[in-house]
């Protein structure tokens, strides 16, 4: 019995029974029944000790349970913080009760968690479900919202796990920004796919079409539904052989990419050229998943290409091969002839007087004429021969597989005859000749350059020989042609640099004993050796360089004359030579009028000298031009008179002022009776036509006396002065030596 037991044992036992019963009640069982448990047994059994021991175990168990709970709670927290979603729990007043790591980061700017607790959620973020959003059967609401450029998918649900916390609401936020971005990109790609100007075709690993864009359907003419499931073989044109497709597949499999031009057949059967690239796509396991073909319709490029190709190799006007293509053919002909020990001929054709026609009647008519010439040439040659236009009025015929030289000469003759036939173009009847240079392979050159150069030189010889004929190449021609070319280059340069000078030769009136005028003569001080006026002026005429040169001469002479007049030098006019080319110029009269005005010189102070041949070319035009010049007061002289074939009647009708007797008739005067008769006849003719007469090339007193006796008072020649620089001429006029001395 315990020592602390109260003295009243019965009361103590009753107390123990009451406390034991109280404890038993706490344990959930019935109270002690005294009839079962007498006092002695009660004390022996020690129910309080037993119950105390049990309570110790209850406490132990509770501690363990609490520890487990704490661990579970921290595990749940870790899970909550670990999930890729923000979680916010609010109470009925929308105040924040709990939230996880991402909620803190995304919405609460990593603030101190304690400062968030109890804050109303609407004051922290705008994640309020749209009012029209209806809750799902379980009471949850899903919606999306955007904050600071991020898109969120939100699930808002009542927390129903614990019946005591039904007022709690949980918000789950999933960041769907990347998904939205990916969706936007996908939408963009879809748009690119659909609106691309290039056709796009996608097939699966078995090469079945799974998709095609609008451009591909447009290019091929197939509808999308007709293509889906088909093999692209459907589009094969049949123009490529099996090896083409083998190569394509080989390259595709080995390099993953193929690009090239391919002909496909459209739905309507037409074949179109495509520039196509095919790429192979692989899945994550490296297996082929798709093929993507991108096709550009290059029909128009192809057309342009072949058109350009044609243009590059043909003359646009006549449709004949041009120089480029001709050079090709010539090279081939040389190679072939070398290999087969064959021979061939080259005919270099230049039209005579074509420039005159072009200039006087206009380019339009000139072009028509070139077309007609091309046509005539084509009808004369065999199919295997090449007719080409090298430019301007130059044509060339390549005659292959020649059996004998005369065949080439025979063709040249036929061409000359045929081109000589009249041309009826726009109410004009026109006549034309041609000069042909002929070279033969292998005798006249072993390479294209030599053959063509020699043919060109031969053509010039044909022209020199009087035109309208052909000339077979001879070696000495080459040297002439080269010298001519080099002189032409120098001449061109000299014109650009105005390297020429004018000299003035006096024309004297022997009766008055004074210098009345001068003839302006062009000199080339720094010119190549041997390039006197008799050499470079004909070349300038041939190359049409006479046009700029002649303008320079006219302007310089007029300017000089103006200076002299200003300085009181008393001469009547300056005489300037005009070449056939200049005379054929369309705006000659306007040019002269303009220059007179520009230089401040009256028309009566200018004389132009023309040769008889110029005047005989186109009489109607001549008459018109000379009359127009006469209206300006400009004097007209016929130069080198007596050497041409002037019709007297015509001369009479023309508005002419002076005849200039050619120096060849003066040179042997008075000893040569023939020349004396001619000189006398010319002077007589001039007088009868009411014209003045000027004798050129007067060198001796006897010539002067004789001419004077015939009534020719105007004389020009070394007897009075050679052509002089302006200053010397001026000095001569001011202080003339006694004439006739």
């Amino acid at each position, binding site marked *: 019995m315990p020592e602390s037991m109260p003295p009243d044992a019965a009361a103590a036992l009753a107390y123990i029974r009451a406390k034991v019963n109280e404890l038993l009640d706490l344990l959930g069982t019935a109270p002690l029944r005294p009839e079962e448990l007498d006092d002695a047994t009660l004390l022996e059994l020690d129910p309080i000790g037993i*119950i105390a*021991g*049990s309570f110790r175990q209850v406490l132990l*168990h509770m501690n363990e349970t609490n520890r487990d709970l704490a661990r579970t709670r921290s595990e749940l927290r870790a899970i909550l913080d670990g999930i890729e979603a923000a979680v916010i729990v609010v109470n009925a007043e929308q105040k924040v009760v709990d939230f996880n790591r991402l909620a803190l980061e995304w919405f609460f700017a990593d603030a101190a968690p304690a400062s968030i607790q109890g804050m109303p959620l609407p004051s922290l973020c705008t994640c309020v479900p749209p009012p029209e959003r209806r809750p799902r059967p379980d009471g949850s609401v899903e919606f999306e919202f955007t904050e600071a450029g991020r898109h969120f998918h939100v699930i808002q649900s009542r927390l129903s796990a614990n019946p005591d916390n039904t007022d709690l609401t949980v918000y789950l936020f999933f960041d769907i920004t990347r998904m939205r971005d990916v969706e936007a990109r996908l939408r963009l790609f879809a748009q690119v796919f659909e609106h691309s100007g290039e056709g796009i075709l996608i097939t699966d690993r078995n090469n079945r079409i799974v998709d095609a864009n609008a451009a591909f359907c447009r290019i091929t003419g197939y509808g999308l539904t007709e293509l889906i499931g088909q093999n692209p073989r459907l589009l094969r044109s049949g123009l490529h052989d099996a090896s083409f497709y083998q190569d394509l597949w080989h390259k595709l499999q080995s390099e993953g990419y193929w690009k090239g031009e391919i002909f496909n057949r459209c739905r309507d059967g037409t074949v179109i050229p495509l520039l196509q690239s095919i790429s192979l796509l692989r899945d994550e396991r490296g297996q082929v998943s798709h093929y993507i073909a991108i096709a550009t319709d290059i029909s128009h490029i192809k057309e342009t290409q072949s058109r350009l190709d044609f243009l590059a190799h043909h003359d646009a006007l006549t449709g004949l091969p041009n120089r480029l293509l001709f050079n090709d053919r010539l090279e081939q002909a040389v190679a072939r002839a070398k290999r087969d020990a064959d021979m061939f001929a080259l005919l270099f054709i230049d039209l005579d007087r074509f420039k005159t026609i072009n200039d006087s009647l206009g380019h339009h008519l000139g072009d028509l004429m070139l077309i007609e010439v091309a046509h005539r040439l084509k009808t004369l040659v065999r199919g295997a021969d090449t007719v080409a236009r090298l430019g301007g009025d130059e044509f060339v015929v390549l005659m292959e597989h020649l059996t004998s030289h005369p065949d080439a000469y025979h063709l040249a003759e036929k061409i000359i005859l045929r081109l000589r036939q009249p041309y009826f173009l726009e109410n004009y009847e026109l006549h034309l000749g041609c000069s042909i240079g002929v070279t033969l392979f292998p005798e006249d050159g072993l390479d294209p350059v030599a053959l063509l150069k020699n043919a060109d030189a031969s053509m010039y010889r044909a022209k020199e020989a009087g035109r309208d004929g052909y000339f077979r190449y001879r070696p000495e021609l080459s040297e002439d042609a080269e010298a001519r070319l080099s002189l032409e280059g120098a001449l061109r340069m000299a014109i650009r640099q105005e390297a020429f000078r004018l000299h003035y030769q006096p024309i004297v009136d022997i009766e008055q004993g004074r210098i009345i005028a001068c003839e302006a003569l062009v000199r080339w001080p720094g010119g190549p050796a041997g390039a006197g006026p008799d050499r470079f002026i004909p070349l300038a005429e041939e190359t049409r360089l006479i046009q700029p040169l002649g303008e320079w001469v006219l302007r310089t002479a007029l300017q000089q004359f103006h200076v002299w007049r200003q300085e009181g030098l008393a001469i009547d006019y300056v005489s300037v030579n005009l070449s056939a080319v200049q005379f054929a110029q369309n705006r000659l009269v306007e040019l002269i009028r303009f220059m007179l005005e520009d230089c401040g010189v009256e028309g009566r102070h200018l004389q132009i000298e023309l040769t008889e041949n110029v005047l005989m070319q186109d009489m109607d035009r001549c008459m018109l031009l000379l009359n127009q010049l006469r209206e300006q007061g400009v004097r007209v002289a016929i130069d080198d008179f007596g050497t041409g074939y002037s019709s007297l009647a015509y001369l009479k009708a023309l508005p002419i002022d002076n005849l200039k007797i050619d120096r060849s008739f003066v040179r042997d005067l008075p000893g040569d009776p023939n020349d004396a008769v001619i000189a006398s006849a010319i002077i007589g003719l001039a007088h009868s036509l009411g014209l003045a007469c000027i004798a050129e090339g007067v060198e001796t007193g006897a010539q002067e006396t004789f001419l004077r006796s015939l009534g020719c008072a105007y004389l020009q020649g070394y007897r009075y002065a050679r052509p002089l620089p302006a200053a010397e001429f001026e000095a001569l006029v001011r202080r003339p030596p006694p004439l006739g001395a």
Partner: protein
Amino acid sequence: MPEILRLDIRGQICPSCLLLTLKALNEHANRLRADTLEVVVITDDRQATATIPETSAKMGYRAEVDRLDAAYRIRIRIHA
């Protein structure tokens, strides 16, 4: 498998049954909690089949009750 301590308290009624069982559970608390011992109570008091499992559970034990011929077997082990 834990050792088994058999506690035959047939003829006893509650609360003695419970007290006798609790006494055993207290005496062998260490081994029971280490799960090296299972206490098997044989009783014919029906009320004990409710009070013993309930009280055991509060102490952290799991009790399974089987019906035997004219008695009940209550197997008590630490809650796994």
